[in-house]
Structure formats: structure tokens, C-alpha cells
């Protein structure tokens, strides 16, 4: 409402929201927080004031509905400390209901507006707050005789607060009977909160004079208040790194891929269940850890105990490297995380713990476990971010067919993969003429180097992964592999 520089920002009290807003709210402006009941409006407002109080700024909560005691109780339940926040309750007291007579000579607009306005003006002039919350401004609609007067009153009220050097959040409860379109034009920004089924989102739809991150971002209510997980924007993150070849730790496998996979690239290991994808993944992950570079494996399907047992059976030193905190295995429980939360978790591993390799095991597990959104878009953003940060990505992709021809990947990952390794079962006759199920490895894509174009047998033994000789012929059948 005034011409304060957009470079100055006030923290919203919610880290993720600050990221979405480009650093926080522009001071001395008014922002509409809209959403249905239970969507988190009051919690956001309390955190906004908490951040102000923590910063030594005078902060005032003007409530037109909930009492101070209710607000304090709710804040305590959400783990928000409200000390240092001034409350001004202007809703009806309980005596309003118990009074024998209520008036009907004038409308409530005539009777209540004057005293309420007077109390607000008096409190603002006395306290001179830097941060003000009005929860909810919708109540003022009932203090106006018509929509035009309501609009004038709200606009005038917000100007009064802004001219008093206050940054204002005002909430609205829109309904079909009382829509709040008019309010959306009055503020300098709009934050929309939604709680739909079991998913909460936050969306900034307006921020006058500043850019912001559009789209729906994940919102969570926790014992520490509101947490917002901003959508990952890969291009905001970049590090310098060299495209070193990273060994798998198995010479014969490295030989197939010109010495290794390149740092900061995406490798997809594709194949049917039980063919050895995870063993190959842990081979790469432990090789990274052995170089002293932290590898993080997100396991969507398998429990840690199973992973440890299998790796011990193939001499892959997962347990030792985990104990040295060079390898982390994060079991992702189904339907707990949203894509934004998962991306935030990955970011923390990269930016705070220094992870240099990230494994997603598997993409179908990710698709089932991570709630909401088009997973391929989210995976694209995540892998792009990791690549920009010089983190090597390995994605496990489970295919449905046991033998024979198939897609390179089932998860539509080919376009974002720099390297694709295809593991397959093959049917072959042994020396006695009996049918046997063997395994074959086929490098079908290597964007940054030459590769072994031969399809080779491989096996998983007690001493680890072993790459064998080329496959010379397949059993002729309807499952014949297409070269």
C-alpha cells in the first residue's frame, strides 16, 4: 500500500513460505490469507507475529472471533509461543448470548462498527505495532451496510495500518454466500491455504512488486506449527563440478561403461524383479562411500534388515559404511511424504550433509509412496536439481517382463537418463541341453562416452557382482530379445 522497497523483507515465520515469497513479506504492506476453516490461517498469522516478536518488533493480533484464551490455547497446542504478542479481542463476549434483551432498533453495522473501530485505532496508536494480524476481516462484512461500504471500510482500515508502518496479514473465510473476491483486489499479496482430503497446500497467487514461486506447495501442520515445503526449482541451485568418471568398484562393469558413470549424471538401472538391480545399485553406492563421498539410498520397497542381509551375502560392505556415515539408507514409508517434502529431504542430504550420490530404489516405489502430483514432473525437477549440484543419481526401474524384449524403462525415464543399464533374465540351454535362467546386462545408452555394445552375462555371487562373457545366442522363443 506504500512504496517500501521490495528488497527489504520481513520473515513470515515459516521458512518455506519465505522461500516462496523471495525472502519474506515486503514491509508495510497488507496481505490476504484466505482459506476454509481448519486450513491453517490463524497458525500462519501466529507464526508471523512470533517471528516479529523474536525480532524485537511489536506485534498485535486483532481477533474478531476467537477470544484471547482460545488463541493462546490453540497456539500452545501448535507449539507456538505467544509471549510478547499483544492480543485485542473484539468479538462478542459470552454475555452477549446471556443478555436477556438484544437490540433491534439499529443494525449491528450501526451499533458495533464505531466502538470496534475506536478500539482498533486506540490500540494501534498506543502500541504502534510493526506487525498486525486481523483474524478474520470477513467479520467486518457484517458491520457494513452494503458491499460498497465494506470495501471502503476495509481499504481505509488497511491504509490506516500501513500508514502506521505496520505490515498486515488479514484473513478471510470465503463461502458461496459471502465470496471474498472483493478482498483480493485490496491487498498487496494473497496467500491461499487449502486442506483437501488428507493433503494441505499453500499457494501464493499475488505479490505486488515482486516475483514469487507459483504453484501449490505442500503445507504440514506439526507440533511445531506450520511447515511449508516449497516446490523445487532446479535452476535456483548450481555448483561447479567436473564430470569425473565414477567407478562401480567392479572392473569388468566399469569396462562396459568407459570407466564409470559421470559425476552429476542420471543412471537408470532397469530390469525385472530379483534380477540384481539393487545389488548393482549398492555396488555403485558403496564405491562412492569408499571414495569418501556420502551416498544416500532412498529405499521405497525394502526394509533395512533385508538390504543388510542381502548385501552381506554378496560381500558388499553396506553395514561398515553406514557405521562410518558414508552411506545412508533412508526407508521411505508409503503415503507419508509429498513430493515437496521428499525433495526437501533430499536437499538437506545434499546441502547440509554433503551427499554426492543419491539413489532412488525404486521409481515404482516412489510413485506409490509419494502422494500427489505428476511424479514424472517431480522426478524430472529432482534429478535436474541433483545434476546441477553435481550429485550423481541412480534410479532403479522395475520392468514387468521377466525375459525378452521390453521397454528401456517402464517409468518413462529414458529421456532424463544419461546412462541406461538394462538387466534381463535370459533362457538358455546348458551343456546337458536343459533350459536354464541366466542373467544378462545390456548398456543401451551412455550419453557422455563410448560403451560396450555387447550384451553380457552377469551373476551375483558371494563375492559380489561378476560380469561374464557376451551372450552369443538366445533361445528362440516368443520371448526372443530384440537387439
Amino acid at each position, binding site marked *: 500500500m506504500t512504496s517500501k522497497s521490495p528488497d527489504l523483507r520481513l520473515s513470515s515465520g515459516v521458512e518455506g513460505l519465505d522461500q516462496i515469497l523471495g525472502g519474506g513479506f515486503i514491509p508495510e504492506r497488507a496481505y490476504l490469507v484466505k482459506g476454509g476453516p481448519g486450513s491453517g490461517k490463524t497458525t500462519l498469522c501466529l507464526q508471523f507475529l512470533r517471528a516479529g516478536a523474536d525480532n524485537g518488533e511489536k506485534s498485535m493480533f486483532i481477533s474478531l472471533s476467537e477470544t484471547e484464551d482460545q488463541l493462546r490455547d490453540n497456539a500452545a497446542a501448535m507449539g507456538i509461543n505467544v509471549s510478547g504478542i499483544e492480543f485485542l479481542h473484539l468479538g462478542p463476549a459470552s454475555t452477549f448470548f446471556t443478555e436477556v434483551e438484544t*437490540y*433491534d*432498533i*439499529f*443494525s449491528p453495522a*450501526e451499533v458495533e462498527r464505531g466502538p470496534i473501530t475506536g478500539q482498533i485505532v486506540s490500540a494501534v496508536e498506543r502500541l504502534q505495532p510493526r506487525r498486525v494480524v486481523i483474524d478474520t476481516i470477513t467479520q467486518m462484512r457484517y458491520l457494513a451496510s452494503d458491499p460498497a461500504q465494506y470495501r471502503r471500510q476495509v481499504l481505509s482500515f488497511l491504509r490506516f495500518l500501513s500508514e502506521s508502518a505496520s505490515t498486515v496479514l488479514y484473513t478471510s473465510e470465503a463461502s458461496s454466500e459471502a465470496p471474498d473476491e472483493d478482498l483480493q483486489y485490496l491487498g498487496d499479496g494473497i496467500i491461499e491455504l487449502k486442506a483437501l482430503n488428507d493433503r494441505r497446500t499453500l499457494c501464493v497467487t499475488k505479490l505486488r512488486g515482486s516475483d514469487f514461486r507459483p504453484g501449490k506447495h505442500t503445507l504440514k501442520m506439526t507440533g511445531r506449527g506450520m511447515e511449508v515445503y516449497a516446490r523445487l526449482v532446479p535452476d535456483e541451485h548450481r555448483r561447479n563440478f567436473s564430470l569425473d568418471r565414477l567407478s562401480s568398484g567392479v572392473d569388468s562393469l566399469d569396462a562396459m561403461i568407459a570407466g564409470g558413470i559421470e559425476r552429476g549424471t542420471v543412471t537408470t538401472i532397469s530390469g525385472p524383479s530379483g534380477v540384481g538391480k539393487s545389488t548393482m545399485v549398492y555396488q555403485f553406492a558403496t564405491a562412492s562411500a569408499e571414495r569418501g563421498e556420502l551416498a544416500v539410498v532412498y529405499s521405497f520397497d525394502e526394509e533395512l534388515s533385508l538390504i543388510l542381509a542381502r548385501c552381506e551375502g554378496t560381500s558388499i560392505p553396506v553395514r561398515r559404511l553406514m557405521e562410518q556415515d558414508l552411506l545412508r539408507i533412508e526407508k521411505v514409508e508409503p503415503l507419508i511424504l509429498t513430493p515437496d517434502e521428499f525433495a526437501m529431504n533430499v536437499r538437506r542430504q545434499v546441502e547440509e550433509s554433503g551427499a554426492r550420490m543419491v539413489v532412488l530404489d525404486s521409481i515404482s516405489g516412489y510413485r506409490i509412496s509419494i502422494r500427489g502430483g505428476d511424479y514424472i514432473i517431480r522426478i524430472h525437477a529432482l534429478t535436474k536439481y541433483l545434476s546441477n549440484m553435481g550429485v550423481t543419481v541412480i534410479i532403479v526401474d522395475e520392468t514387468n517382463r521377466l525375459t525378452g524384449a521390453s521397454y528401456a524403462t517402464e517409468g518413462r525415464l529414458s529421456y532424463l537418463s544419461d546412462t541406461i543399464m538394462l538387466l534381463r533374465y535370459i533362457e538358455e540351454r546348458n551343456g546337458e541341453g536343459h533350459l536354464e535362467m541366466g542373467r544378462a546386462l545390456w548398456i543401451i545408452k551412455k550419453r557422455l562416452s563410448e560403451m560396450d555394445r555387447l550384451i553380457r552375462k552377469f551373476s551375483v555371487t558371494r563375492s559380489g557382482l561378476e560380469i561374464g562373457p557376451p551372450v552369443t545366442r538366445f533361445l528362440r522363443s516368443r520371448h526372443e530379445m530384440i537387439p
Partner: protein
Amino acid sequence: MGIKAEVEEAEVKEAGPLILLVDRNLRNLQLLERFLGNAGFLTRPAPDLTALDAAIAEAADGGINLALVDLSGFDSLIWERCRLLRDIGVPFLLLSPRQTDTLQRQSIDHGAMRVMIKPLVSGDLINILKLLLKTDLN
């Protein structure tokens, strides 16, 4: 007229016209007193028929410039008092939550200047009172 009487008359004029407020709802009475008082009118409340009778008896010698009579909560005896107000020359407005043909007829029969429907708009009420009393309180 003696000096004392002249002074008293001047004080009344400065204080503004006196309006009799007839309303069984005490909250309504409080609000009317507040709004009209802020606008410069003097008011006298009458929350029941006894108080109204007393006011009418005193007003026979003058003093009440106008009456606002809220019909809500009164029975048909209120019409008798309306007639008395008319008879002693006190103009009055009737207040009602709704307009009906019967009310319209009764109000004319008993000499009301007009019927105003609640809730009132305070600004409109003040303007009507000023107009009726031909008073400039500014």
C-alpha cells in the same frame, strides 16, 4: 417574562429539543439515547406504560417536542396513549419491525406522522427528526 425564566428557556434551546423515547426494550432505549444524544437531542425514556403515562401527564404543559414509539412488546393499550399524545399536541413516529396494512391504518387513525421500519439507519433518523423539528443542531 422574568430574567430567570428567560435564562431557563435559553438553556433549553441550547440543550436542544426533547424527544420522548417509548420502548420496552431497554437495550434499544440505551442505543436511542446514545445516538440521539450524540446528535444533540435531549431524550426522556419511557420503558413501560406507567412511565409513558407520567411523561404524557407532564407533557400536557409542553416540554416534549416529539415522541418515538416502538410498538414492539406493547398490547393494544398503546394506541390509547398514541391518541393522548396526539391530543396534547406531541407529534410522534411509530417504530415497528414490519409494515402491514393494519398497522398503516391504525397509525393514520391515531395520528402518527409516519411509521419507520426497524432496524433504522441512524443518519436517516437524525435527518427526519431535524426536518420534523425544523432544527439545525449543527
